[in-house]
C-alpha cells in the first residue's frame, strides 16, 4: 500500500518538473522548479531525513532558484520570451536523455537499496555519505551513480556557456 502523502508529494514533484520545462513564462518555469525542489525536500522528510530536507530547501530554493529568477529578471525581457522551436535538436536531446536515464537506471536498479528503507530515523549526513560513497556490506556503494549525477553539473555549465555565446552573436 503506497503512502498517500508520498503519492501527493511525488505528483507535485513530477508536475513541477514538467511545468518548469513547459511553462511559456520563464518566471513561472523557475517557480515551478522551486515546487519541484520543495517536493524533493518533502520526499526527504518522508524518508526521515529532515536534516537533508532543510538543506535541500536552503540550497536549492534559497540559492539556485533565486539565482535563476534573478538572471531571468535581469537579463531577459521582464515577461519571458516565446520558446524557440528546434525540432531536430529536441529529438536528439530526447534520445540522449533517455539513453542516460536508461544507463543510470540500470546501474541503480542492479543493487538498489538492499534491504534498507532509506536510512531510518538516525539518518544524518555522515550516514548518507557513507552509504553513497563507501557502501554498506556486500554492494559496492553508489560511487558510480554519484559520479554520473555530476554530469548534470557539467551539462549545466556547457549549456550556460552555449547560451551565453549565442546571445553575443545575435
Amino acid at each position, binding site marked *: 500500500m503506497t503512502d498517500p502523502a508520498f503519492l501527493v508529494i511525488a505528483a507535485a514533484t513530477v508536475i513541477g518538473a514538467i511545468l518548469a520545462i513547459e511553462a511559456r513564462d520563464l*518566471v513561472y518555469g523557475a*517557480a515551478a522548479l*522551486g515546487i519541484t525542489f520543495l517536493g524533493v525536500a518533502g520526499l526527504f522528510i518522508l524518508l526521515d531525513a*529532515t*536534516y537533508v*530536507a*532543510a*538543506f535541500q*530547501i*536552503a540550497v536549492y*530554493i*534559497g*540559492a539556485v*532558484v*533565486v539565482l535563476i*529568477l*534573478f538572471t531571468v*529578471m*535581469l537579463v531577459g525581457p*521582464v515577461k519571458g520570451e516565446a520558446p524557440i522551436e528546434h525540432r531536430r535538436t529536441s529529438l536528439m536531446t530526447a534520445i540522449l536523455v533517455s539513453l542516460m536515464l536508461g544507463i543510470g537506471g540500470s546501474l541503480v536498479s542492479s543493487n538498489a537499496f538492499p534491504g534498507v528503507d532509506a536510512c531510518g530515523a538516525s539518518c544524518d549526513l555522515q550516514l548518507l555519505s557513507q552509504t553513497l560513497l563507501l557502501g554498506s556490506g556486500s554492494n559496492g556503494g553508489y560511487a558510480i551513480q554519484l559520479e554520473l549525477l555530476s554530469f548534470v553539473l557539467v551539462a549545466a555549465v556547457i549549456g550556460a556557456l552555449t547560451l551565453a555565446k549565442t546571445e553575443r552573436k545575435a
Partner: protein
Amino acid sequence: MVDLPPDPISMTIQIMTSPLFLKIAIFPGLASIGIIAALLTWLDRKITARVQLRIGPQYVSPLGGILQSFADLIKLAFKELIIPEKADRFFFLLAPIFGMVLGAGLIGLIPFSPETLISNLEVGLPVFLAFVTLSPTLVLLAGWSANSKYPFIGGLRSLFQQTGYEIPLWLSSIGVVMMAGSFNLSKIVQAQSTGYVLFGVHWWFIVPQILGAIIFLVTSVAEQERIPFDLPEAEPEIIMGWQAEYPGFLFLAAQGAGFIKLYAFSALFTTIYLGGYLGPGPLPPLFWSIFKTTVMVVVVILLRGAFGRVRLDQLLRYGWTLLLGLAIANIAITYFLIEGIPAI
C-alpha cells in the same frame, strides 16, 4: 456487537479539545500570532515615537492607543482590493499570503515551555533557517509581479541583501549547535541549564557565544527587513519598495508577515541564546520565555530609532568581510571553549 462509527459531533469536540489542536489554534498558534502581530505593530509605532520625542498612537482606547492597530486592521481588511491591471495576478496574490503562512509556521518550531510547543523536530534550527531563506524569493516574486518600477527595485534589493547576510546568519548559529551538541531547539534550551560553566555558575549561551549572538542579531534584523537594513522597503527612497502596489488586505498580509517574523526571530534568539524558558524563581517557564521574547522585541525596535539606513554596497561589504570573518572566528573560539586551549 457492531462497532458504530464515532459520532461526528463528539469527534469534532474531541479533536477541538485535544492539546495539539488547542496549541495550533490558540497558543502558541494562530490566534495568538494574529493578536501579537497587531500588538507589535502598536509597540513598534509607540516606541519609535517615544524615541523621536513624539507621542505616537493615543486616541484609540485609554491605554495609550493600544487598540490603534486593531482599528487599522479592520480598516485595511474592508478596503477595496485593487490589483494593478498589468500585474501578474497569480504571484501578486500568492506572495504576501504565502509569506504570512511561512512566518506563522516558524512559531510552531519554538519551544515556549517544555509542554508549549507544536513541533519538536530533531533538526529544528536548520528547518527554521531554511524556511526563512524562502522569504526573499517571495519578495522578489511580489516585486516582479506588480509590474511597476519601485516594487521591482525593492525585490531585487531583497535578493542582493540576502546574499550579504544569509551565510553569516547560518554560520553564527553553528556555535550554539556545537555547544549544545544538538540541532533540536528544546535540547538547546536544556543544554543551557547544564551547559557552559564559568566561575562555578551555569551560563546561558549568550555569555560564551556573545560574538555569535551579536552577529545573529545583526543578520536577523537584516532578514526581517527592519531599519537599519530595510532596503527592500526603504520608504523615503523607493516608497515601501515591493509593497508599494499592494492594496488593503494584501498590504495587511505583507506588513503582518514582517511583524510575525520579528516575533519569531525574537523568540528564536531567546531560545538559542537567552536560555528560552529557563529562569529563576517560582514563576512558570511560559512567563520567562514570553518576558525574554518581549525584551528582544523591544531591543530590535529600539535599533530602528537609533540607526540610519545602510547602503546596499555597505551591507554587502560588511556581510562578506566583517560578519563572515567574525562568524568563522566565532566557530574557532567555540571550538577552543569546548575542547580547551591545547598545550603547545
